[in-house]
């Protein structure tokens, strides 16, 4: 049974708000770049990037994507099949990287992304933007920008796209 917890409009509004928050915090700071975590964060990074572009075109914030499968900490425990290939065509040294993912859960994917980013250079700082924070962190990772806080059960299935966010609960 699927619950719609965010509609397409909710998602759009959250994206706009996050874009404003990112720009506000950055005011006058280092160059900003967005890096979406493949695959779930790619569309979101594109959306946030487009929103930032609409608000402040002069900011010229590039968007890249990172595939973290080779940095995961569970390699060898379960099958790892790399998804889409990383693409980061800009410098990472000295910039502010905003990692973007659709759903923040245990935090392990973000940890892998942090490690992955290091192979591209040494950012000045790294922030994290997520559409949904569903709790159950297993590592000390916290988001800087959140679309919606969503308490869930561990066996819930959370899906997030531009058309909305659904939660499917397993029968209890």
């Amino acid at each position, binding site marked *: 049974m699927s619950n719609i917890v965010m509609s397409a409009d909710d998602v759009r509004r959250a994206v706009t708000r996050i874009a404003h928050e990112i720009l506000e915090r950055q005011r006058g700071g280092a160059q900003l770049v967005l890096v979406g975590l493949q695959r779930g964060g790619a569309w979101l990074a594109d959306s946030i990037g487009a929103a930032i572009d609409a608000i402040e075109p002069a900011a010229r914030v590039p968007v890249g994507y990172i595939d973290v499968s080779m940095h995961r900490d569970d390699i*060898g425990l379960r099958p790892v099949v790399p998804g889409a*290939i990383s693409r980061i065509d800009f410098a990472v040294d000295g910039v502010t990287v905003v990692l973007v993912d659709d759903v923040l859960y245990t935090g392990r994917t973000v940890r892998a992304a942090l490690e992955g980013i*290091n192979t*591209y250079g040494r950012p000045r700082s790294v922030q994290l933007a997520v559409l949904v924070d569903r709790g159950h962190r297993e590592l000390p990772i916290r988001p800087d920008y959140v679309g919606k806080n969503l308490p869930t059960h561990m066996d819930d299935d959370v899906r997030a796209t531009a058309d909305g966010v659904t939660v499917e609960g397993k029968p209890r």
Partner: protein
Amino acid sequence: MMKHLRSIDELGRDGLMRLLDLTHHMVEVNHRPVPKVPALRGRTVVSLFFEDSTRTRLSFETAAKRLSADTMTFSVSTSSVNKGESLRDTVETISDMGIDAFVVRHKSTGIPWQISEWTNASVVNAGDGWHQHPTQALVDCFTVREALGKERFDGLTLTIVGDIMHSRVARSNIAAFSMLGARVVLVAPPTLLPPDVSHWPVEVSYRLDDVLARTDILYMLRLQSERMSQGHVPNLREYAETYGLDAVRAAKLPPHAVLMHPGPMNRGVEMLVDPSLLPNSLIHKQVANGVAVRMAVLFDLLAGESSAAGLAQAAS
């Protein structure tokens, strides 16, 4: 699923595509400022090279290191194999140290299969006798894929020229390129062809000039000088005249055709023209792609979907 990479036939078409797809990821990793991922951290890859080959061995070791694996090298001159320790004893001793993969090159056919019987580690064939050299075929397929922008090679003609009989590169490439849909033509004197190729998916010609015009990928093999003393060819000059790539022959190739060679080249024998002067030479790309391909292979065997099955089995 896949525990070893020993021959292209064993790999199969699905495995071939999977490894080629994975290679793209590794190419990207190699372009990063820090070209290293922790995927195989804690794993140990041992090079067992019984035949001299600095280039291939370094290619594998670099690949392992870029995946954060630990490496060990075992070269025959320093080994106890010469002191009478059997191959099996050598493999078992190293295995007992707890290693995850052997990368093996040996002048005798079949060694990778024999070794698999004596160890739980994965075995990667880096060349066994005249038989197979699967990672070279992967490098070659990937290089063509990249150069022509195609995943399937239907309608393309691959012409392999030279000492087919003694070539593991030829055997692996015939299998791999055929799996991807290419037509394969072998060009060699009868003395350098295996006794019976009737069941291979190939066409045979004794005259290179007859096939140049319809060749899309020209693959030159190296001719070893020993072949002369074994009576396969009367002398190297005659071989170069009949089967060597010179400027005249290069001009007969269609403009889009590409040139490949597994290296090292015998200039003046099979190569009578400087390939760097030819616009469509992919030889440098073949070398460049070696590490990425081998990273894909090691990753697939030790961290990919195929290895999880092995781990699950070990745990049960």
